[in-house]
């Protein structure tokens, strides 16, 4: 039993105890992480994360991870490539790395701060320069007009206010208020889109006592936010100190940056020159800073990945160490871990290597523990079996050492999919897609794929098998994009009485050649078509009648066989868990019930096919219950065509009787026997005193105890009503399930019908219609056909056939034997940790 097929049962596990000397504990755990075969149990579940022994180290690792995330962000912002991992370079120890990271972070933050400050003042200067230029040009141009106007209006305004703003307000304010206070002005930049509301608000706030002049300057980097914004230079003129404070507040609210603006043109020019000089200076400083920053980031980028892996691993090591219980003397750490028996040797050699390397005086103790706990479930899958195991695990993880449904699923899943998806053409398209993924697997593995493609890629071998089976079932259905192929010769049907007249096209165009072909139909002249469905059926009036009957019967036969396989799996479980009670009280009656009713139905189908009987199977099955015996086989008119073989009536009575008797047999004996066993044990315990099985019990049969829930040792409370109810549910589920699950397999027929009808519609109605007209219609028709084939058949139909195959496995097949109550083996493994996010 121990040498069972791989994957058929989960790996044998053992709970191991490790005693690690404190000084080499860290290195030992790191070495075990490389091996990746131990799942450590948390021995301090009651302690919070802060109370644990190595909480401080975990915190340090978290801090380092934060720094690394910051570096990654910075490096990505720069658009630098992170260097290839320096995988095995472990010369830097954690403290050193921590110091290094600290130093680098400080340096980077400082550089960033400097760069930000410089950029800010640079942008401010740019804006100031703009203001100087643009606002200066307002003044220049108005000054020109002002002198002209002053010259003209000298007699009208004898007081001769040569105020610089006056010409601007010449029409409105200046003449009316000659004694007004000096006009003030504010210059600056405001975002272009805020300009209108800005002006409106200024107008309201000053009751119209202002004048705003603005000009757009295009996109400018805002010094505050560092983003490029469309801006406009403005100069607003106003009168009075109160207006000024109002305007300043409004400027602030609108995010308008104000700049000092000297009135005199000479000072303006001087200032402009100063600004230009400082800008040039700043430019070089910024460039130097940027180069420095790039150098720092470049050096970080090259080792970022290596550091990230190291930090992730360190953190995982300390997390694992936190699960250990610390001895009072603090010299030894005690750990418990699940280990696959097959991997024990590797763990031991890793432990020896660490002991040698650290030259520890005492090595790590690695010894098995006795436990009644259920071990984790571990299947050693590879890239092909992995995705099928995932399909099964999505339903529930197998109980420890339970029969693994994934084994048969590897074939039956793609096969049932293909029964629904059978078409050579569509299968070939799918095969190409699967081959692309399988053949370029290495390059695709290294790429970051999008989510949907990632999912397809994970199931690439499943898709490959699905496509191969689809091509096979397509050959059986004789359909390639719904067109029949005559690979195995011409159809075997010919005109009745004229065995040579087989050309259907000829018969179509010369109806008088074979008039029988249109009413009674053709006759099969040369026995059945050797492989698959005869191509003659395609497009005939009776095609669906024939195919539906065939596919329905096929679905039932496939279903009954798969369900039988499921029940046989339950037998294998019972045998390996030494549960003969369940074998007699569950397996045997279940087999009898299913096969005496639905197995018999399958047998009748085969007899009907082989003998050519015209019996009505519905009638037979229904009257098997309503009127058992020969009477049920006669139809209303007293005909005897439902009798398919002699003694059928008697046999059917027996079948129904035995099947019905097997129902209470499933229900009653098991709980009663369990009750009796329990009582007997209770009596024994009374007689001998309480001798409980202790840990000193035989160690070899340890695995057996765990695996046998109904076996020997369940000395926990026995609740008869609970067991009875459980058994009742189980029985009802099976009996009703036998009927409903058999019917459920008809989905194979339904989906297969839908698939072939859809593809026939696309082919006949779209492509063939296009061919009748000119080439443009053909191109259009072909593209519609191609799109429909891809979108509806290749994507949606694939998905629905996949889901239905999934359901048939999860429900109809697996509920016959699978408990799925285990938990997955999650070893402490660096290979896994390296893939995690930092």
């Amino acid at each position, binding site marked *: 039993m121990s040498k069972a097929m*791989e994957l058929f049962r989960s790996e044998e596990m053992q709970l191991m105890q490790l005693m690690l000397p404190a000084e080499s504990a860290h290195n030992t755990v790191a070495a075990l992480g490389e091996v990746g075969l131990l799942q450590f149990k948390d021995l301090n579940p009651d302690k919070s994360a802060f109370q644990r022994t190595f909480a401080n180290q975990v915190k340090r690792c978290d801090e380092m991870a934060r720094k690394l995330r910051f570096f990654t962000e910075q490096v990505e912002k720069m658009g630098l490539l992170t260097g290839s991992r320096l995988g095995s370079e472990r010369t830097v120890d954690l403290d050193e790395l921590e110091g290094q990271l600290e130093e680098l972070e400080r340096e980077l933050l400082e550089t960033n701060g400097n760069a930000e400050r410089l950029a800010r003042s640079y942008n401010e200067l740019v804006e100031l320069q703009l203001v100087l230029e643009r606002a200066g040009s307002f003044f220049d141009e108005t000054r020109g007009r002002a002198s002209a106007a002053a010259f003209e209006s000298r007699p009208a305004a004898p007081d001769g206010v040569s105020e610089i703003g006056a010409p601007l307000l010449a029409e409105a304010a200046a003449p009316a208020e000659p004694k007004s206070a000096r006009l003030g002005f504010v210059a600056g930049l405001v975002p272009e889109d805020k300009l209108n509301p800005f002006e409106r608000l200024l107008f309201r706030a000053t009751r119209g006592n202002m004048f705003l002049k603005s000009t757009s300057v295009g996109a400018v980097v805002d010094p505050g936010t560092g983003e490029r914004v469309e801006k406009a230079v403005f100069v607003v003129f106003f009168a009075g100190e109160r207006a000024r404070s109002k305007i300043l507040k409004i400027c602030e609210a609108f995010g308008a940056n104000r700049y000092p603006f000297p009135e005199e043109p000479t000072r303006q020019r001087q200032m402009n020159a100063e600004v230009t000089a400082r800008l040039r200076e700043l430019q070089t400083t910024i460039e130097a800073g940027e180069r420095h920053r790039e150098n720092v980031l470049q050096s970080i980028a090259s080792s970022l990945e290596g550091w990230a892996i190291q930090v992730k691993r360190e953190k995982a090591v300390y997390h694992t160490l936190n699960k250990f219980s610390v001895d009072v003397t603090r010299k030894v750490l005690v750990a418990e871990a699940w280990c696959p028996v097959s991997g024990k040797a590797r763990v031991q050699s890793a432990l020896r290597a660490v002991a040698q390397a650290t030259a520890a005086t005492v090595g790590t103790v690695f010894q098995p523990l006795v436990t009644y706990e259920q071990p984790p479930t571990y299947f050693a899958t590879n890239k092909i079996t992995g995705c099928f195991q995932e399909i099964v695990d999505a339903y529930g993880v197998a109980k420890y050492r339970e029969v693994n449904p994934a084994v048969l699923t590897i074939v*039956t899943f793609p096969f049932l999919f293909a029964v629904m998806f059978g078409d050579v053409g569509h299968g070939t398209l799918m095969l190409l897609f699967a081959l692309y993924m399988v053949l370029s697997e290495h390059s695709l593995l290294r790429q970051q794929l999008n989510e949907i493609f990632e999912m397809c890629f994970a199931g690439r071998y499943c898709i490959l098998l699905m496509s191969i089976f689809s091509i096979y079932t397509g050959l059986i259905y004789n359909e390639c994009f719904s067109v029949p192929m005559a690979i195995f010769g011409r159809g075997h049907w010919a005109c009745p009485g004229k065995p040579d007249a087989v050309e259907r096209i000829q*018969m179509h165009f010369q109806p008088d050649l074979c008039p029988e072909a249109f009413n009674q*139909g053709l006759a099969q002249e040369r*026995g*059945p078509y050797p492989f698959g469905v005869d191509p003659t059926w395609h*497009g005939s009036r*009776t095609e669906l*009648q024939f195919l539906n009957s065939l596919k329905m019967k096929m679905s039932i036969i*496939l279903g009954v066989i798969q369900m039988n396989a499921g029940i046989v799996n339950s037998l294998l479980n019972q045998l390996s868990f030494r549960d003969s009670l369940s074998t007699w009280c569950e397996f045997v009656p279940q087999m009898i019930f299913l096969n005496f009713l639905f197995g018999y139905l399958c047998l009748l189908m085969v007899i009907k096919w082989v003998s050519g009987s015209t019996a009505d199977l519905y009638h037979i099955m229904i009257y098997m219950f309503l009127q058992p015996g020969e009477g049920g086989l006669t139809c209303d008119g007293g005909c005897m065509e439902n009798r398919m073989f002699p003694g059928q009536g008697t046999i059917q009575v027996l079948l129904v009787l035995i099947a019905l008797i097997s129902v209470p047999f499933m229900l009653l004996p098991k709980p009663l026997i369990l009750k009796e066993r329990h009582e007997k044990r209770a009596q024994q315990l009374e007689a001998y005193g309480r001798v409980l099985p202790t840990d000193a019990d035989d160690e070899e049969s340890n695995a057996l105890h765990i695996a046998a829930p109904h076996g020997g040792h369940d000395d926990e409370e026995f609740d008869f009503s609970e067991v009875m109810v459980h058994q009742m549910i189980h029985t009802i589920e099976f009996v009703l399930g036998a009927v409903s699950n058999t019917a459920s397999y008809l989905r194979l027929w339904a989906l297969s019908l839908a698939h072939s009808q859809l593809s026939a519609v696309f082919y006949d109605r779209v492509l063939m219609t296009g061919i009748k007209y000119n080439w443009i219609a053909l191109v259009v028709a072909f593209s519609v056909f191609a799109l429909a084939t891809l979108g509806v058949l290749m994507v949606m139909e694939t998905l629905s056939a996949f889901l239905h195959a999934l359901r048939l496995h999860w429900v109809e097949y697996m509920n016959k034997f699978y408990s799925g109550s285990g938990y997955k083996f999650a070893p402490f493994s660096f290979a896994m940790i390296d893939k995690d996010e930092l």
Partner: protein
Amino acid sequence: MASGFWGVCGFFLALEVVLTLGVLFTGRKGNNGLRHTLCTTAVFCCWLMWIIVYMAQLNPLVRPQLQNG
């Protein structure tokens, strides 16, 4: 008729033999149980589907009728 039936059956049998030998000679040393199971199941599924379709056409109760028009 019979020749076609036994021919295809023989083909499946030969396929099974070839796959079994293939697993024996190309597989790793030791445990090849899974591979044998998978090959056998696959061949059985294919054979089953073929024989169902074959039997259904042995004594067909409906006959193909051409569509007029």
